[in-house]
Every structure is written in structure tokens, then in C-alpha cells.
């Protein structure tokens, strides 16, 4: 990349992005996506939410298509509650008590299904909401972590990192807000135990990891922060005595801000490997170190030659997921979204990150790739778009950074009568509150249907 300013102002190519997402919605995805066959509900959410963020959802869907998509999501709902991520595990009429363990309710699929229904304007009345809430408790392990499914003998399957905790707490927030304790006969998850789990995953450098003492990673940091926000346990100074996550906020802010990098492509990344000098070519995290002769190695001297000495690279700033890693489109979401949710987005400069996404990651056919020059894929294209919206890109709908849906869709969810009733927002709770043993939070019990 030649030094100097680009000739044109960086631009989001709306028309291309809309074409890209409409194609993903209306035509078969190429067979390269076969490895995502078990994540179809996630791909579906990304496709629909992207069109909503681009302001194209109304235009892209006929009423019949909208209903058809809603029906497909309900088609993936299990008789016992919860969703499967696609019909790939559905045994049809052959499904029975002996084999249903191979077709289990899936935490990510349930999270994505609820969001899709919300985006499409469904009222979630056909969702087995009470059954899902009861099931959430069974995907939580004794150590507080969440898995993705319940397997044979009630064993919780899947990793114990914050990804599933993020989605489980989001499901809980969608279905019952942040009310703690049992809701009628439906038990709550063990919130404190889960918070403890997040606290133990905090790392010595301020990141959050997969499990205690593992390496800090922006993806796990993001999932943990989002989960704290759904549970109303963010690290804020409130004298309510509740256990909160992120025990050293200044250190975590330092770690998140440190994810901005000038290692922007594979060549930059190779330069740093095995080269212990600190030249402009190897110090991508602080490019203005131009102290020739300090701690030199012959390799460093070689790579230093002919390098520019101004920091023109500030035109583009990338974001990585761990120290000394290359910038990657998706990490701009995983590192910036938690800052937004924590209320500290202004400690990073969105402008050079935006230029990096638009000039170097945006693809001609629409969408974003993982690295410069890569073809776009649904995952990176979606997260790139969400980040631009988080930074206030003109023309994009504003999003809820933790749910990854537009605030329009979120408001639609918050306006649903059954949900308002649970949260006691309509002042009519008195008629329902008293039943079921007089527990204060039973307002919504009667309105949680199914299961």
C-alpha cells in the first residue's frame, strides 16, 4: 500500500451490500457453507439483521416471504421447547424419547431464533417460553458456566466459555427481562454462580479468557460483557451489594484499547515473527518508533530499510483479538462492542477503524472479508456492518451492540404485551401478582405460555 491519503473519501457501498445480503437471503448459499450446516439459524439471523441495519428489510421481503421465514423458524422449534439450528437433525415422525437426545434444543439456535422472530415482527406467542426458561437452568453447570445442549443423562455438552453464557443470558433477558428469582414455578438460573465464572476468566493483562488462566481473547471478553449487561451486573458503582463482573475495569479498558493495531495484513504479521528488533516494520503497535540503531538485528535493519518514517498508516487502524495478532474484521466487533456496552466507546477513535473496514476489508461485490483481499463471508460481513453502525455510520440503522439487532427491532420486542406484563410495565400486574404463593415476580407467570 503506497503512502499518502487515498484519492477518494472512504464510502460504504450500500447498493453492493444490499445486493450481497439479498442474494444470501433469496438464493442457496454455496456449498462452501456446508461446514455451517449446524449454524443455519445464526446465518439466518445475520442475513435478516444485516438487511434491517441497511434499512432494506421492508423492501426485500414480501408479506408471504416474511410469513414463510417465520414459519421456518417455528418449524425448527422442538416439541419440548427450544430450537434446533436447522432441520438437519430432525427425524420427523421417527423422533421419540429414545432418539431425541441427538436432536436437542440448542442454546445458540434458540437465541438466534428469538432474534429472527423479533426482527420479522412476530409476537413470539407460539414460542414455548416457559419451557425455554426452565431448560436454561439445565444447561448451566455446577461451576456456573453454560453449555450448548443437554446430552445423555442430563450431561451438559459444549464448551464452558462465555459464548454460551452470553446467549443463555440473552435468551433470559428476551423472555423475562432482568427480573431475578423464580418466576412462578419457573426457576431462575444461578446468576451469582455465573458471575463468579466470568470473574475467574479475567486474565492478568485485563482480557477475558475461555476458562481460568487461559489466554485473554476479545471474543470471550465481548461475550462476558454482554452477559453482564443482560444480567444488570456490569461493573458500576451501585450500593446494592450485588456481585458484579470485570473486577479491574481500568485494566480491561487498557486491554480492549490495546486491540487496535497496525498489523494489517499477512506480510506485516510475518515481519514480526522471529524478528526481535524494533523497527517501523516490526513494531506495528506503535509505528512511530524510529530509533535506528537501538536493539538492532541484521534482519531488523534489513526490514527497516526503505520504510517510510511518517505514520501515514494512521489512515487505517485495524483491530485484533489478542496481543501481537493481525487485524481481522470480526475483532473490530468483538473489541469495540464491549466498549460500547461498558460506556467507553470514545476511548478508541472510530474514524481510522472505519477507513480500514471500508478501504481494505470491504469487497467489491459487497460484504467484508476477514483479511484484506479475502472474499466476503456472512460472518465477517455482518460483524463489519454492526461495527460501522456502532460507530454511527450515516445511513445505517442504529443497533443494540449486545443483541446485534436494530434498536427498532429491540423496541418491537420490548413492546410485546406478554413481556410488558412480566416486567410489570403496564400497571396491571396486581391481578396476576398474587397467585402461585405470592412470590413477588409472578406477574408474568400466567402470561408465559406453552411447555
Amino acid at each position, binding site marked *: 500500500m503506497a503512502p499518502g491519503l487515498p484519492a477518494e473519501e472512504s464510502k460504504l457501498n450500500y447498493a453492493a451490500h444490499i445486493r450481497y445480503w439479498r442474494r*444470501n437471503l433469496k438464493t*442457496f*448459499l*454455496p*456449498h462452501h*457453507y456446508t*461446514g*455451517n*450446516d*449446524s449454524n443455519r439459524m445464526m*446465518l*439466518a439471523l445475520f*442475513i*435478516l439483521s444485516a438487511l434491517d441495519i441497511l434499512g432494506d428489510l421492508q423492501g426485500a421481503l414480501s408479506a*408471504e416471504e416474511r410469513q*414463510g*421465514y417465520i*414459519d*421456518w423458524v417455528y*418449524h425448527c422449534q422442538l416439541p419440548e421447547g427450544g430450537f434446533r439450528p436447522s*432441520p*438437519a*437433525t430432525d427425524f*420427523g415422525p*421417527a*423422533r421419540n424419547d429414545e*432418539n431425541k437426545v*441427538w*436432536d*436437542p434444543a440448542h442454546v445458540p439456535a434458540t437465541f438466534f431464533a428469538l432474534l429472527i422472530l423479533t426482527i420479522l415482527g412476530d409476537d413470539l406467542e407460539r414460542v414455548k417460553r416457559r419451557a425455554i426458561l426452565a431448560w436454561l437452568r439445565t444447561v448451566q453447570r455446577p461451576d456456573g458456566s453454560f453449555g*450448548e445442549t443437554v446430552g445423555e443423562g442430563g450431561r451438559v*455438552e459444549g*464448551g464452558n466459555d462465555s459464548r454460551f453464557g452470553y446467549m443463555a443470558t440473552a435468551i433470559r433477558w428476551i423472555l423475562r427481562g432482568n427480573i431475578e428469582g423464580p418466576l412462578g414455578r419457573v426457576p431462575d438460573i444461578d446468576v451469582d454462580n455465573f458471575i463468579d465464572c466470568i470473574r475467574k476468566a479475567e486474565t*492478568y*493483562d485485563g482480557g477475558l479468557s475461555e476458562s481460568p*488462566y*487461559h*489466554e485473554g*481473547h476479545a471474543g470471550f471478553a465481548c461475550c462476558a460483557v454482554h452477559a453482564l449487561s443482560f444480567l444488570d451486573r456490569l461493573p458500576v458503582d451501585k450500593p446494592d451489594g450485588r456481585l458484579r463482573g470485570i473486577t479491574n475495569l481500568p485494566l480491561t479498558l487498557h486491554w480492549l*484499547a490495546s486491540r487496535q493495531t497496525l498489523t494489517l495484513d499477512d506480510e506485516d504479521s510475518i515481519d514480526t*515473527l*522471529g524478528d*526481535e528488533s*524494533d523497527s517501523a516494520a*516490526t513494531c506495528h*503497535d*506503535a509505528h*512511530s*518508533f524510529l530509533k535506528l540503531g*537501538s*536493539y538492532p538485528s541484521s534482519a531488523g535493519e534489513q526490514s527497516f530499510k526503505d520504510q517510510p518514517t511518517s*505514520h501515514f498508516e494512521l489512515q487505517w487502524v485495524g483491530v485484533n483479538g*489478542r*496481543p*501481537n*495478532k493481525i487485524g481481522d474484521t470480526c475483532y473490530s466487533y468483538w473489541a469495540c462492542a464491549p466498549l460500547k456496552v461498558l460506556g467507553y466507546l*470514545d*476511548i478508541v*477513535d472510530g474514524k*481510522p477503524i472505519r477507513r480500514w473496514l471500508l478501504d481494505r476489508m470491504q469487497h467489491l461485490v459487497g460484504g467484508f472479508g476477514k483479511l484484506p483481499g479475502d472474499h466476503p463471508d456472512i460472518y465477517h460481513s455482518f460483524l463489519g456492518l454492526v461495527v460501522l453502525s456502532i460507530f454511527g455510520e450515516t445511513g445505517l440503522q442504529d443497533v443494540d451492540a449486545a443483541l446485534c439487532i436494530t434498536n427498532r427491532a429491540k423496541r418491537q420486542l420490548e413492546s410485546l404485551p406478554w413481556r410488558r406484563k412480566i416486567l410489570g410495565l403496564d400497571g396491571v400486574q396486581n391481578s396476576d401478582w398474587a397467585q402461585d404463593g405470592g412470590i413477588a415476580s409472578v406477574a408474568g407467570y400466567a402470561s408465559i405460555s406453552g411447555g
Partner: protein
Amino acid sequence: MPKYYHDDPAWSDIDPLPQDDGTLHPLAAIAYTEEYSEAMGYLRAVMAKNEFSERVLGLTEHIISMNPAHYTVWLYRAKTLSQINASLRDEIAWLNPTALKHLKNYQIWHHRQTIIDALDSPDGEADFIATMLEQDAKNYHVWSYRQWLVKRFGLFDDEEELRWTESMIESDVRNNSAWNHRWFLVVGGRDGQAIGEDVVAREIDYAKRAVRKAPQNQCPWNYLKGIVRHAQLPISTLKDFALEFADMRRPDDIYSSHALDLLADIYAEQESKEEAERALHLLATRFDPIRAHYWNYRKSLLEQAGTAA
């Protein structure tokens, strides 16, 4: 060569269960190859019958080669292995090349843990990990798996484990996964107990030597600060060391933004507000401008502290 089942006599007793996408408007439908589509039909049919057999192992292997993220197929395979008493060593021999093909897959590692746990021995795992790290020395799954092995087989105090970690840092001093693994061994194995003074001194010395090799490398700085915090030493313990790389009286002779960052913290703690501001100003304007907003935020905190006092 694609593998099909409909013309295979060994499968003639099975009626495949086709996928039912329900409506005219499925979401995120994938243009499956005929091979995948057919194999999945047979998988659904055997799962529906809870069949655990040698041929099912072959079928799950086939599906995994096309879709390694199919989470229940791995669980089904694990159950099949135990039901037919298959050789777990053979399973590991098959998993090795499979893991190399799918470097970023989650499920494969979980499966490996299940198998190695049942075998009750870590033999051969170090060599396999070395092969994986040759492909990607910072692969998160591989390091996580190594940490599981250390925990499962009680290798925290194994000198070979620490030596190996040092060799990984030696070959790339910027590999944060290797640094973290050192922390995992030195601090993580103590189960919350404080580390001894001799170990603290050894770790501080180790990190300082790494900083001297490449002062603008964030990993050893983070490690150094982590150890000092963990040992509950005052951060000013590191002042003289930081000054070696960033003496603000000579701003043209600064070798490390991380040293300036540390000095800003030390000066703030010592209530030398002006010096702390100067360090943050140098960071924002000269030595780490990509984080200018962050350094300015840190400056604003100094001002707030000043007003409060």
C-alpha cells in the same frame, strides 16, 4: 471420489431420512452436494434407530470430513466408540490428521479430551501439539487443549513443561499464547495460593530479559506488571527498569511505549501529576498515536483525581 450409500450393499437395510425444510421459504439454505445430502439422510436414519456399529463409525467420519462443526455427530461418534469397544488409540491416530485439516474447529478438541481422558495417559500428546503449533503457533484451541492436559495429568510442576514453554517464547518472543501458558503454569497451578518470593524474583527477571530483547513487545510488559500486581508489590518497584527505556528528560531516546505507559501509572500513583501527564502526552502525540483517545482519557482521569483532592 465421492462416497455414496444407496448402491452400497452394506447399507441396503437402511432407508435414509431426507431433510425436511418445512416451508417454501427456508432460511440460509445451503446448496449441499449430493454426497453430503445423502450421507446426512443415512445419519438421521441410524441416529433415529440408535444404531452403534462399525459402519456408523465410517459414516460419522465421512460426515465430519464434510462438516466438522456438526456437534451431535461428534457426541454420537463418542457413544459409538464406547458401545462397540473400539480402539481409542486408533481413534487418536485418525484424529491427528483430521485436526490438522480443521485447525479452527471447536468440537474436535472436545472429542480429543474425551478420548485422552478415557485412555488416562498423555503419551504422544506433546508431539502432536508440536505438529499443530508448527501450523499456527498461536492457535487458541491448541493452547487451551495443552492447558487441559496439564490440569488433567498434574503437570504444573513438571520442569519439562516450563522448559518447553520457554522454548516457545524463545522462538517467538511476541507469542502471547506462550507467555500466557507460562502464567498458567506459574500462577494458575497454585490454586489461588500466593507464589513464593523466589519465584516472583525469577519471573520478574525472566520478563525483564525478554523486554530487553524487544522493548516494544507488549507481552513481557503485561506479564511483568501482572506478576508485580499478583505479588502485591508496589508498581514503583518497576520504576528504574521502565526509565531504562523511556527517560522523559530525553524524549528522543525513548524505546518503548509500554515503558511510558507504565511510568504514567507509577507517576500517577506517586502523585507526580505533571510527569504522568507528560508521559501520556508523549504517548498520544508521538509514541502511540493510534491510541491517542485512550491516552487522553487517561489524562482526563488525572485531572479528575486532581479536582477531587
